[in-house]
């Protein structure tokens, strides 16, 4: 009897470990849109490198977080907006734990450090400091983010998720305020492994600026039209932040055999000859982030199997604390049969590629509209919708994705010169961002 009990006890200790062991690595999926290509011609295909974060075992320690909440308190935030923002921030505090570090920065034309970087010990005290934030003057967004970054640097560490959450409702007008400048800031912060999530509140903020900053630093972006939704968004953001399983992801794709990488869809990266380099700041538990490349597969006379590329992914496992490497190879098959080609098309990857391409078109339409070329923009959006409709039929399993895109294209086309354009543009920007970065909310 005793032996049995001991055995059971021992087993019960081992099993969770074993279970946990299974899920400890990021999953790497490399695929190509058309695994079979025709001989005798140059083929264009899409390479997808997907990374999925492993599931976090419940009740186990997650990666500690080092977060700076940067709140806009310019004059336009007066009233409900600032109150809701404070509420949302306080909610965020309540989600954090003892091992986390939080700081709160507020800015108008000057910057106040409301809560200097501190361990989340006395939540009430931190929340009461947030309560004291009052609306003020202009908008020094750049400075606010800079101060937030400074606060993060106090306790910055490799084993933490270092994140700035920026909330703004207006146009930056003190300090650098162009999307390019903020994009540059995002880039440099990403190098420091700090990512910035930007939340735009209302209809007065600059969505290009906010998305550039988030994009380059690999954070999230959200458009919150009504202040009452802020708490919800904060909750979702923190869900992401608290579920980081890997950081400092470097994806190296080496193409063989004259395979030419044409461009990267949707993400920033470097193409040098036949090498592609893409960086990601983090991967979240149970979420997939991917890199999509358009590649050219040169023609071949014989039907054979051709290795295309080697994909190597280096990352820091936030849970185990170790640096890990994933490696996969991908090949393509040459065939004479068109049928073979069609039958084997990877619907998932193809639709992802279509998604990204339609997003590119939307982006183009947006720029045309900015230049005042409304009719041309409309044309492109309508074309886009038609294409999406067609492809939806081809890939019935991916209909949902296409429907979303179709409706947003339609809405945009209709609102190109209405008074709703500001809102529509923000919605569109956010959608584009969501798809390019595979944002979860």
């Amino acid at each position, binding site marked *: 009897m005793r032996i049995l009990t001991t055995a059971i006890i021992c087993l019960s200790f081992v099993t969770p470990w074993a279970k946990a062991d299974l899920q400890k690595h990021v999953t790497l999926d490399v695929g190509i849109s058309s695994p079979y290509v025709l001989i005798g011609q140059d083929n264009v295909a899409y390479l997808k490198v997907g990374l999925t974060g492993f599931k976090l075992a419940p009740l186990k320690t997650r990666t500690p977080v080092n977060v700076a909440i940067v709140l806009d308190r310019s004059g336009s935030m007066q009233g409900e907006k600032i109150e809701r923002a404070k509420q949302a921030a306080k909610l965020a505090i309540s989600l954090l734990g003892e091992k986390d570090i939080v700081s709160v*920065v507020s800015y108008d*034309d*000057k*910057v*106040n*450090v*409301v809560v200097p970087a501190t361990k989340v010990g006395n939540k009430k005290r931190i929340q009461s400091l947030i309560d004291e934030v009052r609306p003020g*003057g202009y908008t*020094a967004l*750049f*400075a606010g*983010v*800079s*101060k937030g*970054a*400074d606060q993060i*640097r106090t306790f910055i560490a490799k084993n933490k998720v270092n994140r700035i959450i920026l909330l703004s409702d207006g146009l930056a007008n*003190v*300090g*650098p305020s162009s999307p390019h*400048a903020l994009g*540059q*800031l995002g*880039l*440099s*912060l990403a*190098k*420091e492994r700090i990512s910035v999530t930007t939340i735009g509140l209302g209809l007065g903020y600059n969505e290009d600026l906010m998305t550039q900053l988030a994009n380059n630093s690999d954070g999230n972006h959200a458009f919150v039209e009504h202040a009452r939704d802020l708490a919800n968004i904060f909750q979702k953001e923190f869900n992401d932040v608290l579920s980081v399983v890997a950081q400092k992801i470097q994806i190296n794709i080496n193409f063989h055999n004259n395979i030419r990488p044409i461009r990267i869809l949707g993400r920033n990266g*470097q*193409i*040098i*000859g036949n090498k592609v*380099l893409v*960086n990601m700041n983090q991967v979240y538990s149970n979420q997939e982030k991917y890199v999509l490349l358009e590649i050219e597969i040169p023609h071949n006379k014989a039907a054979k199997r051709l290795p295309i590329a080697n994909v190597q992914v280096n990352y820091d496992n936030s849970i185990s604390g170790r640096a890990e490497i994933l490696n996969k190879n991908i090949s393509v098959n040459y065939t004479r049969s068109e049928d073979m080609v069609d039958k084997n098309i990877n619907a998932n990857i193809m639709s992802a590629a279509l998604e990204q391409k339609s997003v590119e078109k939307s982006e183009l339409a947006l720029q045309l509209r900015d230049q005042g070329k409304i009719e041309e923009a409309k044309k492109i959006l309508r074309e886009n919708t038609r294409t999406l409709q067609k492809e939806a039929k081809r890939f019935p399993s991916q209909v949902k994705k296409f429907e979303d895109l179709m409706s947003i294209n339609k809405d945009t086309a209709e609102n190109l010169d209405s008074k709703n354009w500001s809102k529509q543009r923000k919605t569109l920007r956010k959608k584009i961002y969501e798809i390019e970065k595979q944002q979860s909310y």
Partner: protein
Amino acid sequence: MKTKLFLIFGLIVIIPVGSLLWLGLGYAQEEQSMYRFRLLNLLQEKLSLRDAQIREIIELKSRNLNQWLAKLPSREDQIRQAVAEQPDINQIFILNSNNEIRFPNPKTLISQSEEDFLYRTQRLRQELIDTLNTKNGEVQGNKAKVAKREKRVNRPKAKTRADKSEFEISISGAPSSTLSKNRSQESWNAQPHMEQDFSPENEGWVAWFWEEGLNVVYWKKSAGKLYGVELHRVKLLSDIIGKLPSSEANFTEQHPFTISLTDSRNQIVYQWGTLKLEKTDKPLTSIPLSFPLNAWTLAYYGPKSLLTSSSPRWSIFASLIAVFITLVTLAIYFYRENSREIREAQQRVNFVNQVSHELKTPLTNIRMYAELVQEDEDDVDQKTVKRINVIVSESQRLSRMIANVLSFSKEKNNKLQLHLQTGIIDECVTNIIKNFSPSLKKKQMEIRYRGEAKNKVKMDCDVIEQILNNMISNAEKYASEGKYLDIHTSQDKDTTTIIVQDFGQGISKDNSKKIFNEFYRIHNTLHEGVSGAGIGLSIARKLARLHGGDIVLSDKDNGCSFCITLMTPKVKK
């Protein structure tokens, strides 16, 4: 008279107040500019402290970059990786000892951003090479060349078209890092010190202007290779902002203020403080940052009132007002005192005048009846005659005294008048002497009269009478021991001269002028107990002057000799 007084008092108040005001204002202005000067210095000092803080950040970066470069791997892709991981860096270039570009190597496959980087740093690399060569080579001759270049730094050129870069190179050869602690601001900023010894490890900064504004490149020469590290501009700015103060702190300043950091295009990139700035506000003072960020400035904004120190002004004005009030009060007081005294004096004179008038009428009656009795000598016995004579002479004396007082007050009121009539001086004088003789007899005095003024002239006999009465009365009082009183009249054209000489004690030189003053009486044993008001001589002289002449006392050994001159125009027959 009143206006003159007013004027005088006005001056008494205005002149001191005016001069004090002028002095005070001058002083206040001095104080003001001193204060302003000191304040601006103080503010600039504060800004310099911030500049020092920023310098430290730059210095830290240069140390980090130095170390980073030292550990830089040699393979291209490794270098690229290292650059990608360095947040402070945008790109780097590496030149070999032949000044050929080794990284990024345009002969190999490089990314678009690396290509752009090579393009925009073309001129910079060339300038850097040139400057470093001249530093190591001819030292003297190129001082001017380098200096000329240096001058350009202080005027950053305006930005140009999008694809062209316009830059100014300023190169600082920093001494090797071990000396960095002792470096003063000057040498840090300065132009290549020719006196420095260039050890094989050189490093420095280049500030250049590209379309976006100021760009900063850190360079290092090591083991034959020249490294140029283009700093990530936005990161640099962000780091600086991160370290500068935020605005929730309790500042020690007692006034609202704001300090701002401005970029090369005069845009505020960051500000902190308690003062809300309007777009049109101008800073009180500003300083450029140290090299290589000298195209950026720190500016201090504060309330305009800060520049004026109110305290000296206040105290000056307060004391001026106090002085003014005091002087005005004094002036008013004295004026009132003065007028009161004048008024009282006037009242006294009027009173006396009034009394004398009252006295004159009954006295005239007494004299009249007494003289009447005198004329009736036959009907009256000797004893009565003697008594009447006394009454007459005493009442005559009273008359004379009253006449004097009345003349005195008239003179005060400017009412003395001359009534000229035709007559003969001698006759007038004879009469006067006759009237006086009885009193003189009592004192055993005798008048010896010699009259040589027999012309018919215009004269006022009453005035002459009053004059002579006073003279004779004085002689009676003070020179009776001389026994004789000589009176001699003479005429010359329109002037009559009457000399009255006594043989008394005489008058000392000191007193000879004073006796003519009103109320003045000589104090000595001779005059003790002698009654008199001291107005006789002054009246006499005034009357003489009224008559166009004067009375003068001449010096004689044995008494007094008064010379009376009168203006008596001859009358044609």
